[in-house]
């Protein structure tokens, strides 16, 4: 286990280095002098001079990268020109909102995706299976920002049941918080539910045809026990890893969902930064997201090894 951990961590170090190079390189795509572009529309000469010095623009590119990465390693992701705040502080301020939204979305995805996958596999080629596959295909093909608009039209405009936009802290008003997040969380969880359903179905089909399931049936165990106690436990193992890969979908989806429902989270931060030409925030958010994605995948791999004894032996 320790050898696995050391090896796995060793593989993420070069990936993180390349990610940092890639994200630092984004700045080079800016047309013209980065200091002038980064200074915004006002192009205040003092700001330009400050940025030139802060970003070490007179130095060669590799030296600039080393200065930048040194700052990043010390928790300095730069400073937002618009909001006059450190980028890391801005991320930390917005992150709890997105984490709450993402947690609700995952919960919804699990509640829909896994039972649908089980039913689809157990009742293979039945009407249930076809219905689950149609729902999965719908989930994969529906743009979540459009689904969000349609849900607003139905539940906010027509029925008046839920607020169309905005966010209330759960510490201020829990009911209001849930009412504000239920639609965006469903929108976000919808596509992930479809993917989970497909993974669960295929894993269950594989497990259900294995010898130990046949043995469990031959012993006369009730079908419910065979499916839930014997088959599902093993079928869920690959779903953990494959589900972790959906974190990217979750983060990407949050950008659009937060925009549709005007939720002041992480996704809205990057979109606002794009329109304010606050490039340090864009860079910081991408770096933070990529690092979080790599680390969470590492955790998923570790969880996979923990729950799967065969992997530990290997």
């Amino acid at each position, binding site marked *: 286990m320790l050898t696995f951990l050391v090896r796995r961590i060793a593989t993420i170090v*070069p*990936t*993180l280095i*390349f*990610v940092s*190079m*890639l*994200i630092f390189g*984004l*700045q080079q*795509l*800016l*047309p013209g002098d980065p200091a002038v572009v980064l200074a915004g529309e006002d192009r205040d000469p003092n700001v330009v001079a400050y940025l030139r010095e802060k970003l070490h623009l007179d130095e060669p590119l590799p030296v600039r990268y080393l200065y930048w990465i040194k700052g990043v390693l010390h928790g300095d992701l730069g400073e937002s020109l618009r909001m006059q705040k450190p980028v890391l502080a801005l991320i930390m301020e917005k992150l709890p909102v997105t984490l709450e939204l993402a947690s609700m979305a995952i919960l919804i995805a699990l509640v829909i995706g896994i039972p649908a996958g089980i039913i689809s596999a157990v009742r293979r080629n039945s009407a249930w299976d076809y219905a689950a596959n149609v729902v999965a*295909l*719908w989930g*994969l*093909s*529906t*743009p979540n*920002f*459009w689904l969000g*608009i*349609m849900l*607003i*039209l139905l539940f906010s*405009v027509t029925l008046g049941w839920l607020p*169309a936009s905005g966010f209330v802290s759960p510490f201020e008003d829990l009911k209001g918080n849930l009412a504000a997040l239920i639609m965006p969380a469903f929108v976000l969880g919808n596509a992930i539910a479809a993917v989970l359903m497909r993974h669960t179905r295929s894993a269950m089909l594989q497990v259900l045809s294995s010898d130990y399931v046949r043995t469990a049936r031959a012993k006369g165990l009730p079908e419910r026990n065979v499916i839930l106690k014997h088959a599902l436990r093993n079928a869920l193992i690959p779903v953990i890893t494959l589900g972790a890969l959906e*974190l*990217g*979908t979750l*983060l*990407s*989806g949050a*950008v*659009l969902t937060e*925009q*549709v429902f005007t939720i002041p989270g992480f996704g809205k931060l*990057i*979109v606002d*930064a*794009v*329109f304010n030409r606050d*490039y340090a925030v*864009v*860079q910081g*958010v*991408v770096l933070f*997201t*990529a*690092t979080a*994605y*790599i680390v969470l995948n590492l955790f998923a791999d570790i969880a996979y090894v923990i729950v799967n004894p065969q992997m530990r032996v290997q």
Partner: protein
Amino acid sequence: MALLAAALPSPATLARGAPRAHPLRRLLRRRGAAVGLVIVTFFVALAVLAPAVSPYDPLATSWTAIRKAPDTAHWFGTDEIGRDVLSRVVWGARASLLAGVVSVLISLSIGVPIGLVAGYAGGKVDMLISRLTDAVLACPFLILAIALAAFLGPSLTNAMIAIGVSATPVFVRLTRGQTMAIKAEDFILAARAIGNPPWRVALRHVLPNVVPALIVQGTLAIAAAVIAEASLSFLGLGQQPPAPSWGSMLNTAKNYIENAPWMAVWPGLSIFALVLSFNLVGDGLRDALDPRQA
């Protein structure tokens, strides 16, 4: 007797097993894929024939027809400045299909050669390429595309570049994996044994065998690219107004959802139908090109 002989399979055919139908025929046998293909063809025709089939100029405004509900004059209604929604949906098909196809071509043209080199060369070259691919894959697809589009500047061309570059690692990984598997086959050893240089073996013998997997992934990637273009345009980073795009139409429509819901319904349904049909075709192609399913 001659007729009977013609009806019976030859010994050679028997030895090889039953002859397999042409992949296109196998694709069309799948109902979902056939429906998907019809819808894709419909949208392609719509995009190509947009000037002929569009009832109005998609940019023409009319102050007397602001936010008109669907009627016989405007089947899909009009938008906030009196433009015909149907005409904009028809012209929007161009932007979506163009973005879908061009982005995937960009991904293919970068990803396939890199994946081929990584898979064929192996060793340190493969390790370096794999780590670079992991780095790009670590950035969530849409977030990377947003960042690239933000730094390149908002336009449909830059959105296509951003989507294409962000989707490239998938093709690198796929080509690399397939190349590594095919490289170990006997016919590749034979091609090398008769003295073919590595580039010829890779291009003439390995690449053609990677193509089926690339076709399947490419079709599914078009679906993802159509959604990505619509997402970027929805955020204002793709097609710029007043040019029609389904994503930017939805961006405007969300502000008028109470008074003019039709502005949001049609562009969204169009994205859904196009993406769904590419997904159906992709799934069908996967089965049709899979020898185990024959």
